[in-house]
């Protein structure tokens, strides 16, 4: 039976998708513009239906450490926040990466730095894909551009994080979180039983059965020669992810003379700019990275001989543009257009910048 088409906010879609995925626990702390995620969960009371735990923590720090604890037990656990709160979570994310724990973190970005503004922004790109917390680690990063993708990326994020035992983030912003669109929610899946988790995540700390050694979840290793080996293992895993899990969307790129590269809400705005450009006779296309890490560098590289120039559009001062320039080896002009501090550019502004490339 076809699922009902619903109208809801991106934030609400994440909450509903989480329940339907069979998520075991959500731990969060309110912050605009993403509080609807926890509010929706509290309204839905999934503990009465699927048994999902929903807990308002005392801080973002506590929330991410609750995720760390839940993940250590092999559970599907998640948290969500917005930029200032996600900064607070970075320590916990680093620990998760170091202990090789899966888990889902949602960042509905707002303008910074500092307390900044509650309006939409994409200024946490560097924080998310270049580190954020301490140490050499990578965070699987998904950038939904619609309410439908907000719902779909919950399952995608969890699946990837469990496939690689690595945290994953949905990196979105106030536009996608707050806007309402049509969405078809995913099918309900049952939560994993303890027996299933013991079988699929044999490392999980669910109590030491007599037939096995203790499971210890830790990121600590004082012997540097072993710690180096751990790091090499992580890097090998990251290379595998980079080779296998890249996702992107190409819109009218086949015959394009000019390319806009943009993700999330900026991609939606840029798509409109491209529609207008095409009407005006400019052959422009949109390249939309869906995974920001792993970044679709290989595919973008192929465009260095095909297009005359690239414009990156971001709600920041120029962050992803660095990765685009690296991807095309600086062989073609790569300009950046961004609005800052919570201002969202209009399609016409983007179009004007696109024309500057010519």
């Amino acid at each position, binding site marked *: 039976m076809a699922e009902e088409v619903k109208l809801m906010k991106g934030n609400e879609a994440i909450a509903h998708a989480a329940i339907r995925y069979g998520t075991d626990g959500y731990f969060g702390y309110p912050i605009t513009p993403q509080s609807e995620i926890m509010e929706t969960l509290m309204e839905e009371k999934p503990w009465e239906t699927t048994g999902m735990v929903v807990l308002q923590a005392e801080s973002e720090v506590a929330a991410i450490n609750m995720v*760390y604890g839940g993940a250590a037990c092999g559970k599907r656990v998640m948290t969500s926040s917005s930029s200032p709160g996600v900064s607070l979570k970075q320590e916990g994310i680093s620990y998760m990466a170091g202990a090789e724990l899966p888990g889902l973190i949602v960042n509905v970005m707002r303008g910074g730095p500092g307390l900044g503004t509650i309006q939409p922004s994409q200024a946490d790109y560097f924080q998310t894909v270049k580190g954020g917390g301490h140490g050499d680690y990578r965070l699987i990063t998904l950038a939904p551009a619609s309410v439908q993708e907000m719902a779909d990326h919950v399952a995608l994020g969890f699946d990837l994080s469990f496939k690689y035992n690595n945290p994953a983030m949905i990196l979105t912003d106030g536009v996608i979180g707050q806007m309402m669109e049509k969405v078809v929610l995913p099918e309900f899946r049952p939560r994993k039983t303890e027996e299933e988790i013991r079988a699929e995540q044999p490392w999980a700390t669910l109590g030491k059965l007599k037939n096995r050694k203790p499971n210890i979840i830790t990121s600590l290793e004082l012997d540097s020669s072993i710690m180096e080996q751990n790091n090499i293992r992580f890097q090998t895993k990251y290379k595998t992810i980079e080779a296998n899990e890249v996702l992107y969307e190409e819109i009218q790129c086949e015959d394009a003379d000019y390319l806009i590269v943009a993700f999330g809400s900026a991609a939606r705005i840029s798509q409109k700019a491209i529609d207008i450009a095409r009407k005006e006779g400019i052959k422009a296309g949109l390249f939309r990275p869906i995974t920001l890490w792993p970044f679709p560098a290989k595919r973008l590289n192929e465009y260095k001989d095909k297009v005359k120039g690239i414009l990156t559009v971001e709600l920041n001062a120029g962050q992803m543009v660095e990765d685009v320039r690296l991807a095309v080896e600086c062989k073609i002009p790569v300009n950046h257009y961004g609005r800052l501090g919570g201002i969202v550019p209009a399609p016409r502004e983007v179009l004007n910048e696109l024309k500057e490339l010519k």
Partner: protein
Amino acid sequence: MIMETAEIIKPENLVYDKPRLLNDTPMHYCPGCSHGVVHKLVAEIIDEMELEEKTIGIAPVGCAVFAYNYIDIDWIEAAHGRAPAVASAVKRLNPDKMVFTYQGDGDLAAIGTAETIHACNRGENIVIIFINNAIYGMTGGQMAPTTLLAMPTATSPNGRDVALNGYPLKICDLLAQLEGTCLVARESVHTAAAVKKAKKMLRKAFENAMNEKGASIVEIVSTCVSGWKMTPDQANKWMVENMFPMYPLGILKDR
């Protein structure tokens, strides 16, 4: 009659043994440190209550960071101060498990104060074992929130000064005020009698958690021979004379 060694080492002659769950890994703790005794008690209680397959321990950052190397159960090593948050999630996601944290004074009463208070206030069905030796042992003897006034440490070399550092924090007195706690007790392990009492209290805490009575905190007033720069014997005497007046032993709350 002279007995041969082989005759002495017989099961029927056994009067005391290392707990089954305490493994043979040599402990990194200093001779005279209280941690070893408390580890032994925890291992004994888990075994006696037949909770080996149900217990998840949360290790802190501090000297007990390697607690997971010594007791053969499942362990999660938490970020500094966050053990109560980790434990809250583990217990809520696995209500049938036995979940305890094992934390020092810096972990529990400085960097992790918020997590400690809120886990207790939510009435999480967990046990918090709190080793208070009034000093940061692992990092080399710096001042702790529980360091006594005038007590010298690496970061208060002239003694803790109220004007500069404020007062020793009696965190358990604070936690006893919270509706979510069911047991708050202060014990020590410096004599055989004290060890026996401490074990009784720890066992009660574990029972509370399994009976979903709320949060139980057992503070063990402890020594730190290296941080205090004393022999084990001196440290025990100093603890009785100086720590006990500030942190009197006994039950602060039991319901």
